[in-house]
């Protein structure tokens, strides 16, 4: 009896590990850093990490939706930059129109992403190529709009979207919630509900899982794909606003290269590159793993050249572990 109970317990652990491999990796990475650096688990640092992951987090959940449809979007960096620049410029010209300016910024990103949506859904161009086209167009468009130079954001409310807290942390001994993480949480909830609770969400999985079967069962795949790219464009816009608030300016070259971090988070989070599979919880943990790696390696004073090597190795290891545990 005794041995049996023990056996069962061990089986339980294995089961947990299998189901929550990602969470286990995340906790493991955190533990390594907690031992290596006394700063890692301090309140300021944890809050810092949460704020740091927000922009990538918003981009990653959008990217996840696109990848679930079997696509990819390489244009998210310039899309985010567009939102920041458009809103910053509008505010520069007309003070005090914060809400319309921010909405216009998000809208501009959504409009540009329609190009990708159209190319992929209607013209049936491979998403990689289509979004590469959008990436180049958006990069150019944002440079034209911004005239190649950054535009400072003076509006305090706007900069608080990136730098602010829900309440003043100095009053509660450093404990507070950064605004960006609130935005990320809200976005994650909206995307989660959309994916799991709506018909459109089920269609996203259907299109990515087996497009022909989806068509056969009456799913308008063209519309689903188009909407997903535009939805992603809106999220890029939101991320761009948070980023612009954070760097207190609309910069035409902001967020360049961010697509790679977003894709990495999605893949580490267990989403299949071939589409049809992916969970928001996985992506969130993927985002956290990358954020913690960035932070922890800096805390440990690892040279940036080595940081990139280590990150690459850990990402491969995490995905491998996740794959192996899923197979069994």
């Amino acid at each position, binding site marked *: 009896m005794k041995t049996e109970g023990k056996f069962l317990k061990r089986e339980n652990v*294995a089961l947990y590990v299998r189901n929550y491999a990602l969470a286990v990796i995340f906790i493991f990475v955190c533990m390594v850093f907690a031992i290596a650096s006394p700063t890692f688990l301090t309140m300021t640092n944890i809050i*810092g990490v949460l704020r740091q992951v927000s922009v990538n987090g918003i981009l990653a959940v959008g990217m996840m939706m696109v990848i679930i449809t079997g696509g990819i979007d390489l244009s998210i960096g310039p899309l985010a930059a567009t939102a920041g620049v458009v809103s910053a410029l509008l505010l520069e010209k007309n003070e005090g129109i914060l809400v319309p300016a921010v909405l216009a910024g998000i809208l501009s990103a959504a409009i540009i992403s329609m190009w990708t949506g159209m190319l992929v859904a209607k013209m049936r161009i491979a998403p990689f190529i289509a979004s590469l086209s959008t990436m180049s167009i958006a990069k150019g468009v944002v440079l034209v709009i911004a005239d190649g130079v950054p535009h400072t954001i003076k509006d305090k409310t706007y900069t608080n979207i990136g730098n602010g807290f829900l309440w003043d942390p100095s009053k509660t001994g450093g404990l507070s919630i950064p605004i960006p993480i609130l935005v990320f949480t809200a976005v994650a909830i909206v995307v989660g509900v959309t994916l799991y609770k709506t018909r459109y969400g089920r269609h996203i999985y259907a299109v990515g899982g087996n497009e022909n079967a989806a068509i056969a069962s009456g799913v308008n795949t063209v519309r689903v794909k188009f909407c997903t790219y535009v939805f992603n464009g809106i999220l890029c816009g939101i991320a761009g606003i948070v980023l612009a608030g*954070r760097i*207190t300016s609309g*910069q035409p070259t*902001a967020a360049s290269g961010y697509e790679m971090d977003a894709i990495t988070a999605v893949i580490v989070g267990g989403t299949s590159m071939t589409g049809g599979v992916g969970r928001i919880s996985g992506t969130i943990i993927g985002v956290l793993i990358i954020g913690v790696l960035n932070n922890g390696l800096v805390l440990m*004073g690892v040279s940036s*050249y080595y940081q990139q090597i*280590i990150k690459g190795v850990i990402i491969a290891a995490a995905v491998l572990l996740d794959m192996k545990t899923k197979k069994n």
Partner: protein
Amino acid sequence: MKKRLLGLLLSLSLAAGMFTGCGSKAEEPAAPAESEPAAEDSAEPSETPEETQAEGKVYRIGVSTQAWKYEFIKNMVNALNALDDEMDNIELILVDSEDSVEKQLSDVDTMIAQKVDGILLNCLSLEGSSAAVEACKAAGIPLVEFISYTENEDYATFVGTDVKSSGIMAMDLAAEAIGESGRVFELQGIVGHTAQINRGAGIAEALENYPDIELVETQSGEFDKNKSMEVVDAWLAKYPAGQIDAIVAHNDQMALGAMNACKAANRTEIKIVGIDGDGEALQAVIDGEMAGTVLDYCEEECRLAVEEMVSILDGNEPKKEILADYVAINTVEKAQEFLTLRSGE
């Protein structure tokens, strides 16, 4: 299956274990690189208080820089590592922003969380990095910016150069090379870039002193070697031999592009001057292929920045602004001196 899982976990922990090993290794190749001959150049303004090792107090200073993939920044990082080794009263924590303003801001937050005594910021963006200034202020940590500065001037001190003077110096070098008379061409940087504006203004200012020099054409080479070759190729086709005496470029990469174009067209009589003091340009000066370059003596600026930080931490009043001089490189000896310093032998 369990064994495999274990194996994977093990390999993961191994990967994780790597960084402890790497952490120390990473410093090594850079550290002994410089035995710092920089000290001998004491012509620089040295309002430095004597290092206060006496108390045996070690200041932990966080340093956030622009991306290390650029040669100039790497030189700077090497210089900082050398200072870290040389000065007993400081411990520098160097972080690469990898060209992302957001990462730079996060890194500064991380350093604040580490409770460093002071922060040195080589900011990535005039506008974008300003949030770091706020963060340091809120945390009560003294901030010294070096080489580049933020729009938000709420920092203790800026240590750097007067960019315009590099333009003046470059034009002076070119004028000297052509005997203060002739036809000069200017290769601009990316139009609207602060370096382009200031270096261009310096060149224009210096030109007023040379009535016999004519500035024939100004074109943008966008700070890019390849782009500048295209521009210079066009000039060489348009102006036959004897009609171009000198080319002044806003950076060394463009100067090197111009040099390549001139070499290919067999017009090596054209005197070429750049700005920055890149290794390749120094070599070109040694080989007699470039007339000169204006070297941004970042090693000296790093030293001044670190010393200013130590002085502030010792309780002295911040100096608000410290300007270092550029170094004109137009002789083989001078070029060799800096090339040796930077190759770390």
